[in-house]
């Protein structure tokens, strides 16, 4: 049983090790600077510049966080500070369902609604032409997907704040909103940052939904209406060919390794902060 318990740690290390070993050839044959900052992607010539993919990943994630965070924060504050228990009971399945809907369904929904709206209604005001399969479409779909995660963790962070502190503020004559603004938000700042970091790491790795709406075009997107090509989509789209081109397999595994390392670091950091918050509230 102890062996099994060590299984989790072993799997974590094993994934890192396997991906690292497979990506070694890419790291050896390419200048590290070129790998990260150039975007010439020519697998047949052995040129692997991840610039466009990394940029796309960051761009889509940025849009998703900017769109998801404000409503998620407002919703979480309402649920933890204002809502009656009936409202909470009615609303919690909403969050559960949103987080339970599979990525591929979000992808279908995105191609049916977001993509045509962007290409027909929104993009003509700004650019000459857009298919709708774009950075913005990816960002919107991703925003909805990470929203339930942000809401549920923020509610946990807010409820970890002791009741006494709220009552102290209220009894000094502060209104409820003043209490929220000056006490709750201030107190939970580290928790909020940790939540955002966790959401960012979730957004980095999302594959199918983003792949279905972002266009998958290997070039640096000039505007939010251009197609883009995030790292997970790159891996998912090319696994079929990767065995037939020398060096390609290693390059894709490097992409997976990159995702793995960044996500592990982000996750570990934010989880440690959230643990401490939970522990402090219990003692």
């Amino acid at each position, binding site marked *: *049983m102890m062996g*099994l*318990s060590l*299984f*989790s*740690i072993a799997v*974590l290390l094993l*994934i890192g090790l*396997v*991906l690292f070993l497979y990506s070694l050839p890419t790291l050896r044959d390419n200048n590290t600077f070129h790998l990260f900052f150039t975007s010439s992607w020519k697998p047949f010539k052995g040129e692997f510049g991840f610039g466009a993919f990394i940029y796309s990943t960051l761009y889509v994630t940025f849009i998703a966080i900017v769109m998801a965070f*404000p*409503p*998620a924060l*407002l*919703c979480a*504050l*309402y*649920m933890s500070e*204002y809502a009656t228990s009936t409202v909470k009971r009615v*609303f919690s399945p*909403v*969050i*559960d*369902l*949103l987080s*339970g*809907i*599979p*990525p*591929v*369904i*979000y992808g*279908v*929904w995105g*191609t049916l609604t977001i993509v045509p709206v962007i290409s027909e209604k929104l993009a003509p005001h700004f650019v000459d032409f857009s298919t709708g399969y774009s950075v913005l479409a990816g960002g919107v779909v991703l925003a*909805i997907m990470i*929203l339930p995660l942000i809401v549920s963790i923020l509610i946990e962070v807010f409820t970890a704040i002791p009741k006494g502190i709220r009552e102290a503020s209220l009894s000094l004559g502060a*209104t409820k*909103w003043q209490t*929220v603004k000056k006490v709750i938000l201030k107190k939970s700042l580290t928790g909020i940052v940790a939540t955002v970091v*966790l959401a960012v*790491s*979730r957004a*980095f*790795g*999302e*594959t*199918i939904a983003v792949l*279905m709406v972002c266009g998958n075009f290997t070039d640096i997107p000039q505007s939010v209406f251009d197609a883009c090509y995030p790292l*997970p989509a790159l*891996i*998912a789209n090319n*696994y079929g060919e990767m065995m037939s081109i020398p060096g390609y397999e290693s390059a894709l595994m490097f992409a*997976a390794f990159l*995702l*793995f390392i960044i*996500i592990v670091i982000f*996750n570990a950091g934010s*989880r*440690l902060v959230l643990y401490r918050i939970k522990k402090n509230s219990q003692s």
Partner: protein
Amino acid sequence: MIMKKLEEKIVKALMIFASVTILMVLLYILYIIISKGLPSLTWDMVSKNPSGGFYLGKEGGILNAILGSLMLIAGSVAISMCISLPIVLYINFIRKKDSRFSNVVRFSFDILFGIPSIVYGAFGFMIMIYFGLQASLLGGIIAVSLLIIPIMTRSIDEVAGSVTQDMIEAPKILGATKFETVKVIVRQISPGITTAILLSVGRGIGDAATVLFTAGYTDSIPVSPMQPAATLPLAIFFQLSSPIEEVQNRAYAAALILTIIILLLSFSTRYFGRKMSKSKL
């Protein structure tokens, strides 16, 4: 003073607006999936395999994908249960609940939980190549197990944490062996185990990125674990990328089937969750 009251009102209105918007987004997603999928959802869709010319819009259904997904998830849940349950029992009842070791294990599962399914898929694929395995039901089961073990462990662990010391000691005092004590505990947390299974099924059955590499895709129902297996998310994904309208419509119908499964799972999770809170666990 008026400003104070006004600010309060505005912010509260904004909060309610944000919450209602989130609710509306969910309803809108469900509405689109249902209204698009329902017209193409026929009995043939769920009762037949794809026949010749299916991907050109001819006869057939996606029974292969539905059964493939069910086999895949059944195998994965069985494997991950055999790994998760002993771990949870060990870190809660054999070691102390809040010992350093238990917390390190919990922490590593939290990190595993955050790893995206595409990384599990790529990792599983590399392992399969190493052992010379083809894309198969077995490969898919292994990759999906890796994906759902963290979910299962975390959610059983949450329930196990609420078992009180009395409940562990009572059977011991009555002269029960360690094994019998474990049986009592497992029975106590069984509603929690049900919830954990439902959660894992929901996550595993809808995930496309893990099975994309590992399980492959086929038009027939797999009869051995070494054969490739079709899965629902991939059936949706592949059919949607077809230029033919009938095939795309089938993708919408398949999406509706998957959504119905997820809704049923979600409602049963709620039902069992409520049952558990009634028995004061």
